[in-house]
């Protein structure tokens, strides 16, 4: 795997951690909770090397 691709996977993992952290911390807005998870789907599929 080229270095730039590894860096992009690291960026993706960082974004996943940010979204997961926001999801954990959110206490009021259920719409935001749903949106965090929606955005997470393609990022998790990429990290798992499925899509």
């Amino acid at each position, binding site marked *: 795997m080229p270095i730039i691709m590894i860096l992009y996977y690291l960026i993706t993992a960082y974004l996943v951690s940010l979204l997961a952290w926001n999801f954990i911390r959110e206490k009021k807005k259920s719409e935001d909770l749903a949106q965090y998870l929606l955005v997470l789907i393609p990022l998790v599929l990429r990290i798992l090397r*499925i899509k």
Partner: protein
Amino acid sequence: MKRPGIVKAVLIFLFLVFLIQGGLQLYRHRHFDVPVVAGPGVTRVVRLSDFGPGLKGTMADPLVYFLEGKEPGGKAILLSNTHANEPEGLLATLLMLENAVVEKGTLIIIPEFNHSAGRNTRPGDGYPLYFEVQTDWGSKKFRLGNRDASPLDQWPDPDVYIHFPDRQLLSYIDVRNVNRTWPGRPGGPLMEKVTFAAMEIMRREKVDIAVDIHGAETMFPVTNCIVAPEKSNRIATMTSLTVKAKEGFDSHVEPSPTGFRGLSHREIGDYSDTLPFLLEAPIPFLDQPTGPKTVKFLLDGKDPFLLSLAQKKKLFVPYDESGWPLEKRVGQHCSVILEILGQYSKKNPDRSILVRDIPRYAEIVRNGVGHYFHDPAGAEKDKIYLN
């Protein structure tokens, strides 16, 4: 929110349902293998990585089949699934692999040229993941791929793809399109390594003819044709005239533009002694203003919206209630390839390529494509290759 814990638990449950349900389908598609029964003409099978560095162990390392005649002669290479959402090329080459016998010269076939694209899906357009072709022994299932390689195999895309070596600026997505990355380079992005390896085959094996097999929209002007550069023009013209006269279908000649870089019909000719040809058969499934992209539509090419547009003369091919079925598309490709080989052999008798047992247009239209595929269950194990 009164009970955030319960809401979060429900949302996580839904998230996992979507992730697992969708992810499993995509995972299975990427790892689904199509068994191919090597016919009596196949003499050896290697990998593309045997000709180019950096491909071994990647998803961009397809099988390369050699069909060598007893008598030496010329050599031709056939590439299909350059765009893996244009399956008529794949079916034409698999049909040849399972049936053709070469008497003189050599046929080199790479059925899944963009192997990564064949294991990619097309997001957003509602494409089916698979399609099935009816055979004499049941149905044979194929993956429907995408035009471009999977980002799992080549990522990230640049803002603009700078073609090598001409430095022409192309669309960012064309960095994953193997019909924009010719002639390639050994140290470039993965798709440039793929085209470089194919160029190496042509240079090392002294290949006379290269045929890149495609399908194109009925609303796209470069459809139902043979695209050829100046050096291939004579053979392409004779082929076009002969199939029209003898077999009754059109496949006109389009000149390969000199200013549009990266395409097989341009770069193969410019960077090797090989004569390149690119074949296009109309595939209504790829047109934009159509009904749902169903498997039935992929196979029969019938669509009421296209029919309406045809009546308004908006299409570049004749189109009626019979659509543009798979049999016609595969049949055209087989006949045009046979005719190119025939025309080349006439002009170059010492480098002729003689092939038998490949059906022509009328036979394929009459018998169906599936008639020519062999049952893997009844074949010897060493003849089966997983594509």
